[in-house]
């Protein structure tokens, strides 16, 4: 009887040990993997928000269409990401970062064509940052499922960046940089010219005072 119990216990222990060491499912993801999962998730949420904003507020079809594409593709990416994060026990933030929300708000504050210009620029920046982080995950990540997500996301984000640059190219390179409306910092050469004009006036004033002084002297 004791022999049977012993065997059963050993067998049970073996089964338990096997389960514990069976698969990566129970291993903790690296900091790099976890950081990327959270950042990619927030990036997806930010892109979905930006895509919705574009469809609502864009002046040009380019931006509206890019917006629709971003909503669809980042929703797909996020639907692949969320189960992996859950399996790995990585808690995902509920929304985009404060900075991402701030940036979208700044874009949404623009009107008309200015919205489109601002949206394209902000999206180029966001996708560059996302792609940079994803490249880093591919190089430095450990968990195979996270690496797979990063490898799958890379061409998608690259394509978005490429489309954004195409859209930006239609505006051409900057032809002017209007960077000052106050005049408070106007340089010395202008101030000298300013004094020059005032100087003539000052001379006239002095002459007038001198003339009136002479007249007063004459009257005395």
């Amino acid at each position, binding site marked *: 009887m004791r022999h049977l119990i012993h065997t059963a216990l050993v067998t049970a222990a073996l089964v338990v040990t096997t389960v514990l060491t069976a698969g990566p499912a129970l291993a903790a993801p690296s900091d790099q993997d976890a950081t990327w999962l959270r950042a990619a998730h927030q990036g997806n949420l930010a892109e979905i928000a930006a895509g919705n904003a574009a469809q609502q507020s864009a002046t040009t079809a380019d931006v509206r269409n890019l917006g629709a594409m971003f909503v669809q593709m980042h929703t797909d990416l996020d639907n692949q990401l969320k189960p992996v994060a859950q399996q790995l026990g990585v808690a995902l933030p509920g929304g985009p970062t404060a900075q991402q929300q701030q940036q979208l708000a700044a874009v949404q504050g623009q009107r008309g064509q200015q919205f489109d210009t601002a949206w394209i620029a902000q999206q180029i920046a966001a996708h560059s940052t996302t792609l940079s982080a994803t490249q880093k995950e591919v190089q430095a990540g450990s968990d195979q499922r996270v690496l797979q997500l990063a490898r799958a996301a890379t061409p998608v984000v690259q394509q978005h960046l490429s489309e954004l*640059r195409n859209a930006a190219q239609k505006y051409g390179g900057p032809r002017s940089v209007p*960077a*000052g409306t106050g005049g408070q910092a106007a340089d010395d050469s202008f101030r000298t010219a300013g004094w020059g004009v005032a100087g003539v006036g000052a001379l006239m004033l002095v002459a007038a005072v001198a003339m009136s002084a002479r007249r007063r002297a004459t009257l005395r």
Partner: protein
Amino acid sequence: MTPPVVAAPVALSLPDATDLPVVPVGVLPSGALQLPDRPTVLGWFAAGAAPGAQAGTAVIAGHLDSAVFGPGPLVRLSNLRVGDVLQLTDAAGVSRRFSVVSRTSYPKPALPPEVFRRDGPPRLAVVTCGGAFDAARRSYADNVVVLAVPA
């Protein structure tokens, strides 16, 4: 496989003005670079090169001053000398140093397009206004361009 992509810049530091916020900006239909209203916030031309890219001129621009907000930190560009260090931090937390090589004033119509080139050696251009101010048009006569190379 793919050339490494650099994260977007988020802050610029001059020798006497640290951590000026940088936001991505683009070109309006008029051809003008769209700049943030406040002179304290600078714009990075996002469709151009990024600071830290292997090629091209990364352009950061900002208002010298504003009718609404007054003068800004870029008034300090006129104090810069060759060899002074400018520092850019990107969204991934990476900081990069650039060493000033020139400061040039151009009448606005003569602003060279090559300031915005995406090819060529990696450099940084910080652009603002300068020269005589036309009060009626609320506009400066010149663009001031500070060029710097990776340090």
